[in-house]
């Protein structure tokens, strides 16, 4: 293991160390203990280098070299209203963060929702009723398991808590919108989202991570999700950070019996984006869909690292990740499926497909199946290739010019997996974002189709 640098001493500098004492919940010993432990992990290991298996294909050097300050102390940028091109989910309850700071003025009214529903700023909960998080915080998002989780937990300050009591069906989707906006100095922020659905509860949560054009910033988010028996969560994560930005985010989910975690990650932007997803299918009949799509250009780097743990009988997981790569971009997919001895009757499927738009990009794909049960059905596959000439010819033969044909096929390649997003308004939002991305890449002229 090579330690690049100790994150607390070098990367975030003294400003960070000074700010630490004032974090919400700091006077609560178990919260403080969790942060201390996480920072000890960061301090002890430093930033993981290429010899650490999980970080073999994604280098943190650029982050290590950037002198970040806590983004909440960035004072030379004002965001007075929502930027125009921010993706908005129709009909959703918006909870907005700018540089990791909850913005009451930009958010929707989140008090007084239907009975059995809590939607609160994370810092408020840590301050006023920390005990409500005691059995939750850090239990699935374990700092020891991931550098991304440790960094978030060590510095977590603001975010949101979504808690639904038994059988509550929150009809209105929740949109968590994190906006990065650095000024002259690059800021780092660590939003923390705690989503807890008790038995039989249902919700749709869309996370959007975006940024204003400008300097580099680091968005280091963590979403810790606990689903009780028969609960059902649609969880969509959209990352479209500024082209100079870094994004290290992790989702960790525990799924109890017959509950379903239905998720999609769309990764379109940022200089470096790494999304980690860790799903524990803990109860009999638990099921997860862990799909995703990414689009890369220039020298962008995207990493989707996924672990799906089948820990109980009759659990199901399904994963399709599709990526389109142009320029000299680099895409990484690491997908581990683990089937414990107890998880008889597991059904696990995984597929990664990358479409290369030219000769420049590189794809690293590392699927791993670890199966300790004998009655299982597992399949995984991966393909990387250029556009199918036969497909192009078919479109040409109908009079469609080559540029349009290629655009249709690239869009179709991604839409193929996006079509299976179950929530209609989230699906439309993702389709629109992909269309806009294609237009920005000049793969698709605006209004062309």
């Amino acid at each position: 293991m090579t330690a690049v640098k100790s994150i607390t001493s070098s990367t975030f500098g003294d400003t960070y160390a000074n700010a630490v004492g004032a974090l919400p919940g700091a006077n609560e010993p178990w919260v403080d203990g969790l942060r201390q432990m996480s920072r000890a992990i960061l301090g002890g290991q430093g930033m993981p280098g290429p010899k650490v298996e999980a970080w073999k294909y994604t280098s943190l050097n650029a982050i290590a070299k950037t002198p970040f300050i806590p983004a909440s102390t960035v004072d030379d940028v004002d965001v007075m209203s929502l930027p125009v091109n921010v993706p908005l989910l129709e009909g959703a309850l918006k909870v907005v963060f700018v540089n990791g700071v909850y913005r009451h003025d930009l958010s929707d009214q989140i008090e007084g929702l239907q009975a059995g529903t809590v939607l609160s700023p994370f810092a408020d909960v840590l301050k006023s009723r920390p005990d409500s998080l005691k059995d939750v915080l850090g239990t699935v998002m374990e700092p020891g398991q991931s550098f991304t989780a440790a960094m978030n937990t060590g510095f977590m300050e603001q975010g949101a808590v979504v808690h639904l009591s038994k059988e509550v069906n929150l009809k209105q989707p929740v949109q968590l919108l994190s906006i990065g906006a650095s000024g002259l100095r690059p800021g780092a922020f660590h939003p923390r989202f705690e989503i807890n659905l008790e038995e039989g509860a249902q919700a749709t949560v869309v996370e959007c991570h975006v940024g204003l054009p400008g300097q580099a910033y680091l968005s280091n988010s963590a979403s810790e999700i606990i689903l009780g028996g028969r609960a059902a969560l649609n969880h969509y994560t959209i990352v479209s950070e500024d082209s100079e930005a870094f994004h290290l985010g992790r989702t960790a989910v525990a799924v109890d019996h017959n509950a379903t975690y239905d998720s999609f990650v769309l990764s379109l932007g940022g200089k470096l984006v790494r999304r980690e997803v860790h799903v524990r299918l803990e109860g009999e009949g638990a099921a997860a869909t862990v799909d995703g799509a990414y689009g890369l250009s220039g020298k962008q780097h995207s990493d989707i690292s996924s672990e799906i743990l089948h820990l109980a009988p009759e659990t199901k997981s399904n994963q399709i990740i599709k990526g389109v790569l142009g320029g000299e971009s680099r895409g990484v997919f690491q997908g581990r499926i683990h089937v414990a001895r107890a998880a008889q009757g597991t059904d696990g499927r995984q597929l990664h497909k990358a479409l290369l738009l030219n000769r420049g990009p590189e794809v690293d794909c590392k699927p791993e199946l670890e199966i300790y049960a004998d009655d299982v059905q597992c399949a995984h596959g991966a393909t990387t290739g250029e556009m199918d000439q036969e497909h192009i010819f078919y479109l040409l033969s109908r009079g469609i010019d080559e540029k349009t044909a290629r655009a249709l096929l690239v869009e179709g390649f991604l839409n193929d997996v996006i079509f299976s997003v179950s929530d209609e308004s989230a699906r439309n939002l993702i389709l629109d974002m992909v269309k806009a991305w294609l237009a920005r890449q000049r793969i698709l002229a605006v209004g062309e189709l």
Partner: protein
Amino acid sequence: MSLIEIKDLHVSVDGKEILKGIDLNMDGGEVHAIMGPNGTGKSTLSYVLAGRDGYEITQGSVLFNGKNLLEMEADERARAGVFLAFQYPMEIPGVATSTFLKTALNAKRREQGLEEIDAMEFLNLIKSKTKELEIPYEMIKRPLNVGFSGGEKKRAEVLQMSLLEPRFAVLDETDSGLDIDALKVVSDGVNNLRSPDRTFLVITHYQRLLSYIVPDHVHVLVGGRIVKSGDKTLAELLEAEGYARFEESEAA
């Protein structure tokens, strides 16, 4: 001058000569049928006419409406009015059939200097065409050909043709995979498109199709050559006797 004039066409694939001198003139309003054993070059001819890459034209020419067809790109040919109903239509994941149809239709309209089709007008057009071909309307919301049955794919090809109204349509085994009722529906669809300024080249193995779409001329393609041409009775003869006698003469 005929609408399509194929003269001494020789085509090779990977250095192997597949078409060995095809001569064929087709006039406006005519239906020509090509029959022949497997692997004799029928699809090759259809692909060459549609402009697919990978074929080396070593000799000969094809004129379409007086223009050198072989010099045109595949999409130009299509916009000029050439259409190929594929023997094996491609499945295109993620591209809704309706999006594809609209894009193709608008490409043609742009070529003709027309505006893009209005959404309502497009919807109505599709509704009437799908009804005519007994295609469930829901199908056009699905990704193009993905998961369509063999017969559904063939119907979808004819739907495209009827939407794009080509001047010269090549149907490569459009009857294969169709059940008896579907064969009738699809044939009616084709017959409805027959007109004095539209020419069809119908490739088939079965006389049955030709009893619905009655050809003006029937050609037998064996070993990369047209070894015999005649009227519709030739198809009946072939159905009864097979290709043996032509293959013998080819070998000789």
